[in-house]
Protein backbone atom coordinates (compact mmCIF):
# COMPACT_ATOMS: atom_id res chain seq x y z
CA UNK A 1 0.00 0.00 0.00
CA UNK A 2 1.28 3.46 -0.86
CA UNK A 3 2.26 5.71 1.99
CA UNK A 4 -0.06 8.51 0.84
CA UNK A 5 -3.05 6.18 0.67
CA UNK A 6 -2.23 4.68 4.05
CA UNK A 7 -1.95 8.08 5.71
CA UNK A 8 -5.24 9.16 4.18
CA UNK A 9 -6.94 6.02 5.47
CA UNK A 10 -5.46 6.47 8.94
CA UNK A 11 -6.62 10.06 9.01
CA UNK A 12 -10.13 9.18 7.86
CA UNK A 13 -10.33 6.53 10.52
CA UNK A 14 -9.10 8.88 13.23
CA UNK A 15 -11.78 11.39 12.27
CA UNK A 16 -14.45 8.71 12.01
CA UNK A 17 -14.91 9.14 8.29
CA UNK A 18 -14.03 5.61 7.24
CA UNK A 19 -16.68 3.12 6.24
CA UNK A 20 -17.00 -0.07 8.34
CA UNK A 21 -15.85 -2.41 5.58
CA UNK A 22 -12.76 -0.38 4.79
CA UNK A 23 -12.05 0.00 8.50
CA UNK A 24 -12.12 -3.77 8.91
CA UNK A 25 -9.65 -4.23 6.08
CA UNK A 26 -7.44 -1.53 7.56
CA UNK A 27 -7.48 -3.28 10.94
CA UNK A 28 -6.25 -6.48 9.34
CA UNK A 29 -3.48 -4.58 7.61
CA UNK A 30 -2.44 -2.90 10.84
CA UNK A 31 -2.28 -6.22 12.68
CA UNK A 32 0.08 -7.50 10.04
CA UNK A 33 2.18 -4.32 10.22
CA UNK A 34 2.70 -3.37 13.86
CA UNK A 35 4.91 -0.40 13.02
CA UNK A 36 2.13 1.23 11.07
CA UNK A 37 -0.24 0.21 13.86
CA UNK A 38 1.75 2.30 16.33
CA UNK A 39 1.62 5.25 13.97
CA UNK A 40 -2.14 4.83 13.64
CA UNK A 41 -2.55 4.72 17.42
CA UNK A 42 -0.57 7.93 17.84
CA UNK A 43 -2.70 9.62 15.19
CA UNK A 44 -5.93 8.53 16.82
CA UNK A 45 -4.64 9.62 20.23
CA UNK A 46 -3.83 13.06 18.92
CA UNK A 47 -7.26 13.48 17.38
CA UNK A 48 -8.98 12.29 20.53
CA UNK A 49 -7.08 14.74 22.72
CA UNK A 50 -7.93 17.50 20.26
CA UNK A 51 -11.57 16.48 20.42
CA UNK A 52 -11.55 16.74 24.20
CA UNK A 53 -9.68 20.05 24.08
CA UNK A 54 -12.22 21.76 21.85
CA UNK A 55 -15.29 20.24 23.50
CA UNK A 56 -17.46 22.32 25.78
CA UNK A 57 -18.73 21.05 29.11
CA UNK A 58 -22.41 20.04 28.98
CA UNK A 59 -23.31 22.64 31.60
CA UNK A 60 -22.28 25.41 29.23
CA UNK A 61 -24.45 23.98 26.49
CA UNK A 62 -27.51 23.65 28.68
CA UNK A 63 -27.19 27.14 30.09
CA UNK A 64 -27.08 28.72 26.68
CA UNK A 65 -30.09 31.02 26.21
CA UNK A 66 -31.83 30.93 22.91
CA UNK A 67 -34.30 33.29 21.30
CA UNK A 68 -37.53 31.79 20.11
CA UNK A 69 -38.24 31.23 16.46
CA UNK A 70 -40.96 33.88 16.40
CA UNK A 71 -38.38 36.53 17.23
CA UNK A 72 -36.37 35.51 14.20
CA UNK A 73 -39.45 35.72 12.00
CA UNK A 74 -40.35 39.13 13.38
CA UNK A 75 -36.83 40.26 12.63
CA UNK A 76 -37.20 39.12 9.03
CA UNK A 77 -40.54 40.94 8.65
CA UNK A 78 -39.14 44.09 10.20
CA UNK A 79 -36.15 44.01 7.90
CA UNK A 80 -38.39 43.59 4.88
CA UNK A 81 -40.52 46.51 6.00
CA UNK A 82 -37.53 48.68 6.69
CA UNK A 83 -36.09 47.83 3.28
CA UNK A 84 -39.28 48.99 1.56
CA UNK A 85 -39.35 52.12 3.67
CA UNK A 86 -35.77 52.85 2.73
CA UNK A 87 -36.60 52.49 -0.96
CA UNK A 88 -39.44 55.00 -0.70
CA UNK A 89 -37.30 57.38 1.33
CA UNK A 90 -34.54 57.13 -1.25
CA UNK A 91 -36.96 57.97 -4.06
CA UNK A 92 -38.27 61.00 -2.18
CA UNK A 93 -34.74 62.15 -1.41
CA UNK A 94 -33.69 61.84 -5.05
CA UNK A 95 -36.75 63.76 -6.19
CA UNK A 96 -36.18 66.55 -3.71
CA UNK A 97 -32.53 66.76 -4.64
CA UNK A 98 -33.28 67.01 -8.35
CA UNK A 99 -35.87 69.69 -7.71
CA UNK A 100 -33.51 71.68 -5.58
CA UNK A 101 -30.74 71.38 -8.16
CA UNK A 102 -33.05 72.51 -10.98
CA UNK A 103 -34.16 75.49 -8.98
CA UNK A 104 -30.68 76.48 -7.93
CA UNK A 105 -29.21 75.95 -11.38
CA UNK A 106 -27.96 79.07 -13.22
CA UNK A 107 -28.60 77.55 -16.63
CA UNK A 108 -32.28 78.47 -16.55
CA UNK A 109 -32.94 81.61 -18.65
CA UNK A 110 -34.10 84.70 -16.81
CA UNK A 111 -37.14 85.02 -19.03
CA UNK A 112 -38.44 81.75 -17.66
CA UNK A 113 -38.09 82.92 -14.11
CA UNK A 114 -39.74 86.32 -14.72
CA UNK A 115 -43.35 85.60 -14.50
CA UNK A 116 -44.24 89.14 -15.61
CA UNK A 117 -43.18 88.36 -19.17
CA UNK A 118 -45.50 85.49 -19.58
CA UNK A 119 -48.53 87.22 -18.25
CA UNK A 120 -51.31 87.46 -20.78
CA UNK A 121 -52.26 91.02 -21.63
CA UNK A 122 -55.93 91.88 -21.16
CA UNK A 123 -57.95 91.99 -24.40
CA UNK A 124 -58.53 95.46 -25.88
CA UNK A 125 -61.86 96.93 -25.09
CA UNK A 126 -63.78 97.68 -28.29
CA UNK A 127 -67.32 98.79 -28.25
CA UNK A 128 -69.70 96.57 -30.23
CA UNK A 129 -70.58 99.49 -32.49
CA UNK A 130 -66.98 99.75 -33.71
CA UNK A 131 -66.20 96.07 -34.03
CA UNK A 132 -64.91 94.63 -37.29
CA UNK A 133 -68.20 93.10 -38.31
CA UNK A 134 -70.36 95.91 -37.03
CA UNK A 135 -72.97 97.35 -39.35
CA UNK A 136 -71.51 100.83 -38.92
CA UNK A 137 -68.06 99.73 -40.08
CA UNK A 138 -69.42 97.83 -43.12
CA UNK A 139 -71.56 100.77 -44.23
CA UNK A 140 -68.62 103.11 -43.91
CA UNK A 141 -66.47 100.78 -45.96
CA UNK A 142 -69.03 100.56 -48.75
CA UNK A 143 -69.73 104.29 -48.94
CA UNK A 144 -66.06 105.34 -48.91
CA UNK A 145 -63.96 102.65 -50.48
CA UNK A 146 -60.37 103.33 -49.57
CA UNK A 147 -58.76 100.61 -51.60
CA UNK A 148 -59.34 99.33 -55.11
CA UNK A 149 -57.78 96.23 -56.40
CA UNK A 150 -56.74 95.94 -60.02
CA UNK A 151 -58.46 93.12 -61.82
CA UNK A 152 -56.38 90.05 -62.07
CA UNK A 153 -55.25 89.09 -65.61
CA UNK A 154 -57.03 86.03 -66.82
CA UNK A 155 -56.05 83.59 -68.06
CA UNK A 156 -52.62 83.76 -66.53
CA UNK A 157 -49.93 83.63 -69.17
CA UNK A 158 -47.35 80.94 -68.76
CA UNK A 159 -43.77 82.13 -68.41
CA UNK A 160 -41.69 81.71 -71.56
CA UNK A 161 -38.89 79.22 -71.31
CA UNK A 162 -35.55 80.53 -72.54
CA UNK A 163 -32.65 78.32 -73.45
CA UNK A 164 -29.16 79.36 -72.73
CA UNK A 165 -27.26 78.39 -75.90
CA UNK A 166 -23.95 79.52 -74.66
Amino acid at each position, binding site marked *: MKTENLEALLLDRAFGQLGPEVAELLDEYLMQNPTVGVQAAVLRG*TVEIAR*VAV*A*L*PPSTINQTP*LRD*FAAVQRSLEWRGLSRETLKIAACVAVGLSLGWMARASKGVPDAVRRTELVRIAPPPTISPAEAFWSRKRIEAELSHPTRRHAPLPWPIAQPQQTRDKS
Partner: protein
Amino acid sequence: VTAARVQLEQLYRELAPSLLLYFRRQRALAGAAEDLVQDTFTRVLRRPERMRASISARAYVFGIARHVGLDMLRARREHVPWQDMAGPAADERDERVEAMRAAIATLPEPQRETLLLRLQQELSYEEIAEVLGVPVGTVRSRLHHAVLRLQEILKPSVNLKSEPK
Protein backbone atom coordinates in the same frame (compact mmCIF):
# COMPACT_ATOMS: atom_id res chain seq x y z
CA VAL B 1 -46.34 27.29 3.75
CA THR B 2 -47.26 26.03 7.18
CA ALA B 3 -45.35 22.77 6.66
CA ALA B 4 -42.27 24.67 5.50
CA ARG B 5 -42.54 26.94 8.50
CA VAL B 6 -42.74 23.98 10.85
CA GLN B 7 -39.67 22.43 9.23
CA LEU B 8 -37.71 25.66 9.54
CA GLU B 9 -38.74 26.02 13.15
CA GLN B 10 -37.58 22.48 13.84
CA LEU B 11 -34.30 23.21 12.06
CA TYR B 12 -33.89 26.29 14.23
CA ARG B 13 -34.40 24.28 17.40
CA GLU B 14 -31.85 21.70 16.27
CA LEU B 15 -29.13 23.99 14.99
CA ALA B 16 -29.46 27.24 16.89
CA PRO B 17 -27.73 25.94 20.05
CA SER B 18 -24.79 24.67 17.98
CA LEU B 19 -24.61 27.97 16.15
CA LEU B 20 -24.70 29.89 19.38
CA LEU B 21 -21.74 27.90 20.65
CA TYR B 22 -20.01 28.26 17.29
CA PHE B 23 -20.09 32.04 17.66
CA ARG B 24 -19.42 32.07 21.37
CA ARG B 25 -16.28 30.03 20.91
CA GLN B 26 -14.74 32.86 18.97
CA ARG B 27 -13.75 35.65 21.27
CA ALA B 28 -14.15 38.29 18.60
CA LEU B 29 -17.78 37.29 18.03
CA ALA B 30 -18.80 36.03 21.46
CA GLY B 31 -20.43 39.26 22.57
CA ALA B 32 -22.84 39.31 19.64
CA ALA B 33 -23.49 35.58 19.45
CA GLU B 34 -27.28 35.83 19.91
CA ASP B 35 -27.59 38.50 17.24
CA LEU B 36 -25.40 36.53 14.88
CA VAL B 37 -27.55 33.44 15.29
CA GLN B 38 -30.61 35.53 14.54
CA ASP B 39 -28.92 37.07 11.50
CA THR B 40 -27.98 33.63 10.26
CA PHE B 41 -31.52 32.28 10.43
CA THR B 42 -32.94 35.48 9.02
CA ARG B 43 -30.82 34.88 5.94
CA VAL B 44 -31.91 31.25 5.85
CA LEU B 45 -35.57 32.27 6.04
CA ARG B 46 -35.14 34.81 3.30
CA ARG B 47 -34.34 32.13 0.72
CA PRO B 48 -35.17 28.72 2.17
CA GLU B 49 -35.34 27.13 -1.28
CA ARG B 50 -31.56 27.33 -1.58
CA MET B 51 -31.22 24.79 1.16
CA ARG B 52 -32.44 22.06 -1.18
CA ALA B 53 -29.36 22.42 -3.37
CA SER B 54 -27.10 21.89 -0.38
CA ILE B 55 -25.60 18.62 0.82
CA SER B 56 -27.37 19.03 4.14
CA ALA B 57 -29.28 21.68 5.99
CA ARG B 58 -26.57 21.68 8.62
CA ALA B 59 -23.86 22.46 6.08
CA TYR B 60 -25.99 25.19 4.50
CA VAL B 61 -26.74 26.89 7.81
CA PHE B 62 -23.15 26.73 9.00
CA GLY B 63 -21.96 28.11 5.68
CA ILE B 64 -24.22 31.11 6.16
CA ALA B 65 -23.15 31.44 9.79
CA ARG B 66 -19.54 31.58 8.71
CA HIS B 67 -20.29 34.40 6.28
CA VAL B 68 -22.31 36.26 8.90
CA GLY B 69 -19.35 36.12 11.28
CA LEU B 70 -16.90 37.22 8.59
CA ASP B 71 -19.18 40.11 7.63
CA MET B 72 -19.22 41.34 11.20
CA LEU B 73 -15.44 41.15 11.47
CA ARG B 74 -15.07 43.02 8.18
CA ALA B 75 -17.53 45.66 9.33
CA ARG B 76 -15.47 46.25 12.44
CA ARG B 77 -12.36 46.50 10.29
CA GLU B 78 -10.19 45.06 12.95
CA HIS B 79 -8.25 41.87 13.03
CA VAL B 80 -8.79 39.97 16.22
CA PRO B 81 -6.57 36.95 16.66
CA TRP B 82 -8.46 33.75 17.18
CA GLN B 83 -8.86 32.81 20.78
CA ASP B 84 -10.81 29.92 22.10
CA MET B 85 -13.51 30.76 24.60
CA ALA B 86 -13.72 27.20 25.80
CA GLY B 87 -14.12 26.81 29.49
CA PRO B 88 -12.41 24.10 31.44
CA ALA B 89 -13.55 20.74 30.23
CA ALA B 90 -13.89 17.56 32.25
CA ASP B 91 -10.20 16.86 31.81
CA GLU B 92 -9.08 20.26 32.94
CA ARG B 93 -6.28 18.78 34.99
CA ASP B 94 -4.88 16.95 32.05
CA GLU B 95 -1.83 18.82 30.91
CA ARG B 96 -2.07 17.27 27.49
CA VAL B 97 -5.48 18.85 26.96
CA GLU B 98 -4.21 22.28 27.95
CA ALA B 99 -1.20 21.84 25.71
CA MET B 100 -3.48 20.77 22.90
CA ARG B 101 -5.60 23.90 23.29
CA ALA B 102 -2.51 26.04 23.06
CA ALA B 103 -1.31 24.07 20.06
CA ILE B 104 -4.63 24.43 18.24
CA ALA B 105 -4.46 28.18 18.77
CA THR B 106 -1.16 28.25 16.90
CA LEU B 107 -2.50 26.47 13.83
CA PRO B 108 -2.94 28.44 10.61
CA GLU B 109 -6.49 29.73 10.38
CA PRO B 110 -7.67 27.49 7.49
CA GLN B 111 -6.42 24.39 9.29
CA ARG B 112 -7.87 25.42 12.63
CA GLU B 113 -11.23 26.31 11.13
CA THR B 114 -11.44 22.99 9.33
CA LEU B 115 -10.41 21.07 12.43
CA LEU B 116 -12.99 22.80 14.61
CA LEU B 117 -15.78 22.22 12.14
CA ARG B 118 -14.94 18.52 12.22
CA LEU B 119 -14.37 18.07 15.94
CA GLN B 120 -16.79 20.59 17.42
CA GLN B 121 -19.64 20.57 14.94
CA GLU B 122 -18.99 17.03 13.70
CA LEU B 123 -19.52 17.98 10.08
CA SER B 124 -18.51 15.46 7.45
CA TYR B 125 -15.75 16.20 4.96
CA GLU B 126 -18.34 17.01 2.30
CA GLU B 127 -20.23 19.33 4.62
CA ILE B 128 -17.06 21.12 5.66
CA ALA B 129 -16.15 21.52 2.00
CA GLU B 130 -19.47 23.22 1.36
CA VAL B 131 -19.20 25.46 4.41
CA LEU B 132 -15.73 26.63 3.46
CA GLY B 133 -16.29 26.60 -0.28
CA VAL B 134 -13.31 24.37 -1.01
CA PRO B 135 -12.93 20.88 -2.55
CA VAL B 136 -13.15 17.82 -0.33
CA GLY B 137 -9.52 17.05 -1.06
CA THR B 138 -8.54 20.40 0.42
CA VAL B 139 -10.49 19.60 3.59
CA ARG B 140 -8.69 16.28 3.90
CA SER B 141 -5.34 17.94 3.26
CA ARG B 142 -5.92 20.65 5.84
CA LEU B 143 -6.93 18.12 8.47
CA HIS B 144 -3.90 16.01 7.65
CA HIS B 145 -1.50 18.90 8.01
CA ALA B 146 -3.24 20.12 11.14
CA VAL B 147 -2.91 16.76 12.88
CA LEU B 148 0.71 16.40 11.82
CA ARG B 149 1.44 19.87 13.14
CA LEU B 150 -0.28 19.14 16.44
CA GLN B 151 1.76 15.97 16.78
CA GLU B 152 4.91 17.89 16.13
CA ILE B 153 4.06 20.48 18.74
CA LEU B 154 2.97 18.02 21.39
CA LYS B 155 5.39 15.22 20.74
CA PRO B 156 8.45 16.36 18.90
CA SER B 157 9.94 12.91 19.20
CA VAL B 158 7.24 11.34 17.04
CA ASN B 159 8.61 11.17 13.55
CA LEU B 160 6.08 11.15 10.77
CA LYS B 161 6.85 11.02 7.14
CA SER B 162 4.98 14.06 5.87
CA GLU B 163 5.81 17.61 6.69
CA PRO B 164 3.13 20.29 6.85
CA LYS B 165 3.27 22.57 3.87
